[in-house]
């Protein structure tokens, strides 16, 4: 029994280490505003949803961003880089408290906390979003990819607008 538990937690720990590496790279990609690169962290059929915590807890499905599949993410990346007008800014995304929660076949369920700090010209840095990821990872070709990332944000009152994904 003890050995079984130990080996289970060892597997989860290994999974967590892999996911932490993944999340660090993910944050770095978004800090660089490389939204084309951001899309490549997902599987082709992935679901990406940014939802306010009050909506999520009331069972209301409206998302701030709602992408069913990588094609919709590519369209968002294209729009951000080619059509959108917004103030210049620096982005600072921190991902902490990464947890691998369960392994089910080739899927890993995981969670993490995230904080996006934005700095605009002649403004002090401020928190744009704090929230929690609920993730489903899969391994494809030896690489971890997100099959689902649901970003539930506590910072329900948005400061003006959220330009880049989290």
């Amino acid at each position: 029994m003890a050995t079984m538990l130990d080996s289970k937690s060892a597997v989860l720990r290994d999974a967590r280490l892999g996911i932490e590496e993944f999340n660090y790279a993910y944050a770095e990609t978004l800090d660089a505003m490389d939204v084309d690169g951001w899309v490549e962290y997902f599987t082709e059929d992935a679901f990406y949803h940014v939802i306010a915590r009050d909506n999520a807890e009331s069972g209301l499905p409206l998302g701030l961003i709602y992408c069913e599949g990588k094609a919709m993410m590519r369209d968002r990346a294209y729009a951000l880089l080619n059509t959108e007008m917004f103030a210049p800014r620096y982005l600072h995304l921190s991902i902490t408290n990464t947890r691998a929660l369960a392994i089910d076949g080739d899927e890993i369920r995981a969670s993490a906390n995230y904080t996006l700090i934005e700095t605009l010209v002649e403004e002090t840095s401020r928190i744009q979003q704090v929230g929690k990821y609920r993730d489903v990872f899969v391994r494809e070709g030896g690489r971890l990819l997100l099959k689902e990332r649901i970003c539930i944000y506590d910072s329900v009152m948005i400061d003006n607008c959220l330009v880049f994904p989290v």
Partner: protein
Amino acid sequence: MDGDNRLIAKVDGHTGTDRGWPADETRIPDWIYTDQDVYEREIEKIFLGRHWNYVGLECEVPEPGNYIRSYVGPYPVVVTRNMDGELHVFENRCAHRGVEFCREYRGSANSFICPYHNWTYDLKGDLTAIPFRRGIKGKGGAPRDFDMAEFGLRRFHVATRGGVIFATACDDMESIEDYLGPEICAEFDATFDGTEFRLLGVHRNILPSNWKLYQENLKDPYHATLLHTYLTTFGLFVSSNESNIPTDKLGRHGGLLSRRSNGRPDVPEEDQASMQAFKKTMELNDPRVLAFFPEADSKWSGAVLTIFPTLTALRQTNILNTRLLVPRGPNEFMMLWTVFGRADDDEEMTRHRLRQNNIFGPAGFLGIEDNEALKFLQDGVRKAMPREGLAVLGEDNEPTETIITERAIRGMYRYYRDVMEF
């Protein structure tokens, strides 16, 4: 410094009616967006005046006992549906010491108990209980002649139309229909057509700009294809779409109506040249986002209504939303976006609406740009040497199909000056 007289801006601390509004109606002074005394006058003359203030949708309080937090102008209110199904709107301020007692976005309750000293109000806002009213052992407590009936929560008059809830402090308000006027009421009814709606969720954001700039933005068809390259890039709206810009006869309410052509519209070469970054052949990787399933009995696939003072209602393709503008001083307002579908939507239709809502909201392709532009605009009028803004495009007696125009903005300010007595 050449050109304008901007260095002789008035800084005489004038208030109220002694402000000089430019004689030329195409000139709009900066001080209406920035000055505290103008803002306070708006509260009195507009939000507490002879106007219907939007406070929410019936689908946000569908069942007896449901409530939401909302606002009349800047003032926090609670919107409830009582056990008889009636809607009530009252202030979110305890009559005792003043606590803002309702702290949840939404919920269900039989009564409201103020947490400080447990004064209790029913769902109409009547005061129903005061703990230790008679004191303890005959000592203390409320005065013998204290009349609880006099100390209920201050209530607003309520009216609804098509599932939209309005409140007013005015005792002899006209009907919503008369308030909107026939032109705008017809478009309002096309969106709020009596079907039952279902709440999909609420977006909330703070916009560091004056609330009127948001009404202006949605009365401004000129910016649509210039700021929102997304629209033209993916063919959702181009200047050659059939459009109409009605206003009510007072100029306070307006509509931006447009009809999407089937397939990608052709944009004439000369228009392309004046639209920055027009991309000729862009197709979405996932075109489902822009799919359109006609659902309203209207020739217009897009209808943005600006209902004075603080409601905007949008039906764009299959997006349905209202936006409530909550002023928080002259330089800031809060926006509550209530997004809904129809009660009989199947799962696929709900998903379609959720996908399409990527366009609007505070992370939407249009939402980002409007919020950013209005922030920049407030920075300009707040920080720069005062000057008058220009609303010179178009003509007041032009055909209502004209879209390169600022007619509706001028109309709103004609009305505004009138009510504000400027």
